[in-house]
């Protein structure tokens, strides 16, 4: 990615270079000045409230209860441990969501190319409806209407959780399904675009070799579509990770909801927020890193 030089070369070289340096110095000073001003205000405001920046409070007991999760947690545990529990809860829903949304998205995207008219129409309807409704509404629907409204659904989840001895709550399942359905619609558009990028001749060649529709898709089309699909998947995965913070609407204790509780309890907004941002940057980097490795593998072998 080489940036286009926008300033055209009409000034003589040296004068132009000096001008550019001066301009940048001015920009740098301006940004520094604004940042310094904001930070001074922050410091004054925090002093006034008696909450100087520090991370010592992380060691204090958190005292708020959390539902049973993958990690053990008691109310005497520290804030730091509560954050770790929240992060693991977030990761749990993100990883499960990635897998399920990918499966749903591939099915939805491939259904657009089926010879079955009904299947094609349903795939189109799914994308049109799911994408035009806010993700928050998806979650609220699954939580309040399905899992709190239909006792059988709630009991089913609890029975399965007990049977598998997993800490799976109704809130977790509602969040997971909501995220999956919403993200799956976007992924199915990505997959549809990827399949579209494979030349039509490939379908015809496969058919003339006697391949059925399903085998053509699985063995011939999808492997070739993968290189067009992966970059789009990357941003959808990151979106899913970010949307997992909507957990707060269904009362699932993800990282953001723990940051929120911590803020309400301690007033430590800056520190808690900084930890949240760091955690999310790490998660984003992790997803992008894994996807880049996958992408390189596909480009090499595809």
């Amino acid at each position, binding site marked *: 990615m080489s940036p286009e030089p926008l300033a055209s070369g009409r000034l003589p070289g040296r004068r132009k270079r000096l001008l550019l340096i001066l301009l940048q110095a001015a920009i740098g000073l301006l940004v520094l000045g604004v940042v310094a001003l904001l930070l001074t205000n922050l410091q004054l*405001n925090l002093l006034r409230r008696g909450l100087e920046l520090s991370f010592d409070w992380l060691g204090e007991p958190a005292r708020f209860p959390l539902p049973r999760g993958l990690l053990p947690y008691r109310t005497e545990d520290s804030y730091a441990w509560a954050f770790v529990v929240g992060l693991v809860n977030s990761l749990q829903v993100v990883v499960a969501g990635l897998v399920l949304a990918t499966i749903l998205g591939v099915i939805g995207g491939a259904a657009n190319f089926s010879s*079955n008219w009904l299947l094609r129409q349903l795939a189109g309807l799914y994308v049109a409806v799911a994408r035009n409704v*806010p*993700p928050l509404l998806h979650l609220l629907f699954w939580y309040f209407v399905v899992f709190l409204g239909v006792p059988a659904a709630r009991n089913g989840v609890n029975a399965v959780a007990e049977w598998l001895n997993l800490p799976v709550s109704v809130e977790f399942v509602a969040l997971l399904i909501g995220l999956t359905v919403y993200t799956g619609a976007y992924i199915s558009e990505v997959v549809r675009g990827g399949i579209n990028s494979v030349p039509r001749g490939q379908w015809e060649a496969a058919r003339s070799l006697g391949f059925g529709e399903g085998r053509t898709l699985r063995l011939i089309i999808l492997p070739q579509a993968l290189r067009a699909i992966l970059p789009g998947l990357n941003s959808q995965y990151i979106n899913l990770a970010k949307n997992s913070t909507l957990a*707060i609407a269904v009362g699932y204790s993800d990282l953001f909801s723990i*940051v929120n509780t911590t803020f309400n309890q301690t007033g430590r*907004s800056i520190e808690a927020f900084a930890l949240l941002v760091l955690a999310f940057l790490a998660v984003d980097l992790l997803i992008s890193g894994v996807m880049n490795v996958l992408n390189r593998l596909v480009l090499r072998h595809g």
Partner: protein
Amino acid sequence: MGESPRSGSGSRQLLLRIRRGLFASPLDTVITVVLAVLCGGGLWSFFHWVVLQADWAVVVENVRLYLHGRFPVEQVGRSWSWLGLLGALFLVTLMPARMLPRPVLRLLPLLWILILPIGLLLLAGGLGLEPVKSRFWGGLQLSLLLTLGTVLMALPLGILLALARRSSLPLLRWLTTGYIELTRGMPLIAVLFFGQLMIPLFLPEGWTFNRVLRAVLSLGFFVGAYMAEDVRGGLQAIPRTQLEAARSLGLSPLLTIALVELPQALRTALPSLANQCVASLQSTSLLAYLGLIELLGISRSILGNPDYLGRHLEVYIWLALLYWAVCILMTSLARRLERGLNVTGHH
């Protein structure tokens, strides 16, 4: 695959097409039957619910709340007028260009910008209108105001950021790249949380501004980073020859950006920019969890009323319809704009 839309005459052709489209193979037949049974069952139980079990009182009795929130009843005409003006502007913009007189066509962009201050005046009061505090704004009216404010802030910001990210000044490039990537890495609710609870910490004591403005600022800064990437994509798609042509015509760098690069880049980026506008509308619903009573917020408080215990599905269907309708309006507006730009772009 490969269904040719030849308009064959006779019912035989139709039967053939149905057979090819639904029952081509045994597996296909199974899929069709299973899907048809599922769809039929779903539709049947849905209609059963709509007719026999649903109680739409929760929607019908509260239409005023959904549209205007807790806007004072005696002033609600002002909220209606703003919604009406906005709707009229939508309709006029969606009309085919040849049906509109040229001056109106030219004024349209200006009207889209002016509709925001007009809305603020109508809702907040002033100039002879009785003042209404922003905490009484709400419902669809507030959702639309937030969306409009966000888009009108994010678009210029996005353009500036995209240009800065491609500038020849390394410092400017680094700063904007850092800002864009950092913002795009953060969850929106965290940004809104920051905007609602933490912006006051960074201001001198005594400086406050209302939460609607804080919400628009945080949403605008967030969406701006995404729009910047869309505009940058548009800028990258411009052939180099265009820039060389502009230079050889003697256009200054600023004029090249304004007259050659931006118009083309924006036209390319239009579909993704439209998606960002739709996303902005959907994002405003998050503010329900940060103390604003926009469409979702007011619905939550209606659902909290014991009279409407357990009427979630009715409310959510109604909300989904409202959001869906506005989303569709916005996308068709974008498509209309795209066509308009293509017409003017080719002569």
